[in-house]
């Protein structure tokens, strides 16, 4: 059965239900490709009927131990909270807003990268207290909406649901509907409470869902034939250089965007992204509901990926000839530098620890540089993306182009597994996104590169940019060796002696000693 994106509902179906996302798996990348059955799932998404048993639920390892991690509400803060002229109200106790300062810094960095004026984030917490849990927080929410209007005179006001308000049953949809006429701008409910999805990336879908429902122009009067949507975060503007030869201007969504930049998304000629995990929902919805085609191509990483991505875009805008010329000249331009770097990185091993589709892109870049990847850690695996395009199976493309990854692990920010993950492979450095892991891995004698500007590895120059940075990262091994010599992680000898990172899930007898102690008391 084909499942279309439903913009009539205020809620988004979770990734685990919509895409079959998992957060625990261990094996080879080849095996995961086989089990994921992308083609069958794609057929299903497009209304076809695969053979029985194909494209069913993926096996998933459940972990009894989890650690500090991100949630969908945080993702909404990082997306909607970084719009320049819209307000995000977190309808929650104050703790849910305690990452505001971090996203404020991120926004300052992003604005600087994009050449926009500096400003603070426009966020409000309803600061719910115990009495609001008992008597309800709607009055406070209405008040917050009025305060938002008065303080910031925004183009739109978003309301983010949190765990506490979802459990107490706050009706943010009704309040939004009721308040919209009074404040005269869209008031947009976002159902992004942290417990609702096991993976934070559902938060991206929730944020996009909100803007698709209430901001993106439903009946565009004109088409902007030279405008292309790039679903991104706060990365530097390197897409402009890549797409100028095709006569295209970029429209970055959502971080650091204005209301108008979001509104015009339906006027664009196409949509693409730096990461299918992040951009898949928005791209698919713009295609299905607004007729803006989503580029069905590999992601723009490594030489082959970038070539094919450019060709797919060129086809949509009728610039095939220009694309071929550009591709040829770019190959020539980067070749001497690339050869130098390949020599430098000879025999080096790396490991990527990031979200799923982005990891596939990054590993391609490392492979282009001749760096071997014996292992990888992705924080989730989506066996299919919303667009389900024929050419969007990012993991398959990675393996087909650059070879298998024997130790391919899916695990959501479980730092305690790092000793085992690193012991079974060679790695001279790690590239890590998402906070919490890099500092832990850094204790194990390996230098880590916290990749904040997500556009660094994009395109032809992206390969060289990553190479230049890695030269410095490798040199920092000295710091990590010092740390390793003197500082120990908080785990016991038994844990360090284990080889299976999922032993707590895989060995049924692992808690016998503790259980025995507990039983003795009874």
């Amino acid at each position: 059965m084909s499942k279309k994106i439903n913009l009539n509902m205020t809620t988004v179906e979770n990734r685990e239900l919509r895409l079959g996302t998992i957060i625990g798996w261990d094996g080879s990348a080849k095996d995961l490709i086989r089990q994921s059955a992308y083609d069958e799932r794609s057929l299903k998404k497009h209304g076809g009927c695969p053979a029985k048993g194909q494209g069913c639920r993926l096996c998933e390892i459940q972990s009894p131990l989890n650690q500090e991690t991100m949630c969908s509400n945080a993702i909404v803060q990082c997306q909607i909270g970084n719009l320049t002229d819209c307000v995000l109200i977190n309808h929650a106790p104050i703790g849910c807003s305690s990452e505001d300062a971090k996203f404020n810094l991120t926004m300052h960095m992003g604005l600087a990268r994009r050449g926009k004026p500096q400003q603070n984030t426009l966020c409000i917490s309803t600061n719910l207290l115990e009495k609001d849990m008992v008597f309800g927080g709607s009055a406070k929410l209405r008040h917050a909406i009025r305060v938002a209007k008065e303080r910031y005179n925004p183009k739109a006001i978003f309301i983010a649901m949190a765990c506490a308000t979802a459990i107490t049953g706050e009706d943010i949809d009704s309040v939004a509907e009721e308040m919209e006429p009074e404040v005269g701008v869209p008031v947009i409910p976002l159902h992004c409470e942290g417990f609702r999805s096991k993976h934070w990336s559902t938060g991206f879908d929730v944020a996009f869902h909100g803007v698709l429902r209430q901001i993106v122009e439903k009946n565009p009067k004109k088409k902007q034939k030279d405008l292309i949507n790039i679903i991104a975060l706060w990365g530097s503007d390197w897409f402009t250089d890549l797409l100028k030869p095709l006569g295209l201007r970029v429209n970055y969504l959502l971080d650091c965007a204005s209301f108008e930049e979001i509104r015009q998304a339906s006027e664009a000629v196409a949509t693409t992204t730096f990461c299918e995990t992040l951009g898949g929902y928005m791209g698919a919805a713009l295609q299905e509901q607004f007729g803006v085609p989503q580029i069905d191509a590999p992601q723009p990483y490594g030489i082959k990926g970038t070539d094919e991505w450019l060709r797919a875009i060129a086809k949509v805008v009728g610039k095939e000839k220009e694309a071929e010329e550009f591709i040829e000249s770019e190959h020539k331009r980067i070749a001497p530098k690339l050869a130098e770097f390949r020599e430098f990185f000879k025999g080096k091993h790396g490991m990527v620890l990031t979200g799923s589709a982005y990891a596939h892109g990054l590993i391609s870049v490392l492979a282009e540089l001749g760096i071997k990847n014996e292992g990888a850690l992705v924080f989730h695996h989506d066996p299919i993306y919303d667009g389900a395009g024929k050419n969007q199976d990012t993991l398959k493309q990675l393996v087909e182009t650059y070879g298998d990854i024997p130790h391919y692990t899916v695990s959501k920010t479980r730092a305690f597994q790092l000793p085992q993950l690193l012991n079974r492979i060679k790695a001279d450095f790690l590239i890590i996104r998402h906070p919490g892991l890099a500092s832990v891995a850094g204790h194990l004698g390996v230098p880590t590169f916290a990749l904040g500007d997500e556009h660094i590895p994009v395109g032809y120059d992206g390969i060289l940019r990553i190479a230049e940075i890695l030269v410095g990262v490798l040199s920092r091994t000295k710091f990590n060796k010092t740390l390793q010599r003197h500082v120990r992680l908080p785990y016991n000898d038994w844990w360090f002696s284990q080889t299976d990172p999922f032993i707590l899930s895989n060995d049924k007898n692992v808690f016998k000693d503790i259980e025995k102690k507990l039983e003795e008391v009874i």
Partner: protein
Amino acid sequence: MSEQIKKKPTVISNVRYACAVGATNTVVAIKGAVPIANCSPGCQLKTTAMLTFENAFQGSIAAGGGNMPSANATENDVVFGGIKTLDSLIKSTLKIYEGDLFVVLTGCTGELIGDNVPDLVRSYQEAGYPIVYANTPGFKGNNLFGHEEVVNAIIDQYVGPYSGEKKKGLVNLWFETPYYNQNWRGDYQELARILRGAGLEVNVLFGPENPGVEAWKKIPQAQFNLVVSPWVGVRNAEHLQKKYDQPFLHIPEIPVGEEATAKFIRQVVEYAGIDKAQSEEFIKQEAEIYYYYLEHFSEFFAEYWYGMPSEFAVTADAAYALAYSKFLADQIGLIPKRVVITDNTPAKFRPAITEYFKNNISEGVSIDVDFEEDGHEVIKLIESVEFKAGKPLILGTSWELNLANDKETLFFEISTPSSETLVVNRSHIGYRGALQFLERIYSASVGGK
């Protein structure tokens, strides 16, 4: 209730504290203690991001940060109860972590769905595991409140009953909330150094000089509890008074500079009733060194003719707003133009703090302090100050950065959040810290950072 909301907006922009469940960081500040966060995904990353990262990038240690066990509640837990998830989490934490004490902190989700955490934790306590629980949902209070909850939970469930002797000269140091002020580690060290120099035996419960959980077991043996803060920790000291019949000395002002520190030492020594010879000798030695440096500094202060600040505004928690204002107004002669306290100081402590700023800050200096948690209003309060002479100084948070740039003031971050400051080991209190504080202010006025 709705009346109250109409009267005073209680919404908050530009947030300056985390919620109660952020007190996992209080546990991290005890050597060998492991927090077990019984909350939703996101809770720990958000609060920890604010306290350890966007707070002068002080970082975390041991079972803090990315190593912190967390239940990461799912929809399933919310519908069917989360106690099984917590049980698995506790078991696996006990299985693989090196720990002397485990503290379960329950956040909004666990509290609202009504999981029976006490019963579960009790079964582990009865089996001999050193584990306690604290109720720290975000809707009950901020991370300062959560800190006090955790402290009382450890006292009640881990330290336990005591009927032995008290040891004269042994003092429990109750000072600031760990990971909240950017300098808390260095400040703990400086205060402990000063108290030791004065002849006391100091039981350090948090930070670099905390020897581990054995210090907590020693709490009931102390002669008294010393609370150095306008309000944080008073609730714990009151609890200890009831529980162990242990008296406490409450000194609201963190001492900064030689005169304030000497006064502080004399007050504590007097209260402890110990011999004054050692403390007086220590005061003499420290004063000599302090003024050796201050005399050198005075050349800059007198001769530098390219301008320096004469007025300041400060926004911080009650403890540091008070400590820094007092030092700058009383020892340097900077004029306070605005003081905004942002830590949601409990109502019963506010009159004393207000009175302090009005009549006790320095001779001829009096200022009406503002209590305001909403960062938008904080910025407005500072924005509205009419600075008159020279380049003014603003001490605040990263939220004031744009304002300081617009107003072209000297500015540095002293309070949460701080994302343009990096602290490894620094103190701005006592003898040594005060001199570092001077360095920081006047480095800024000569164009440095």
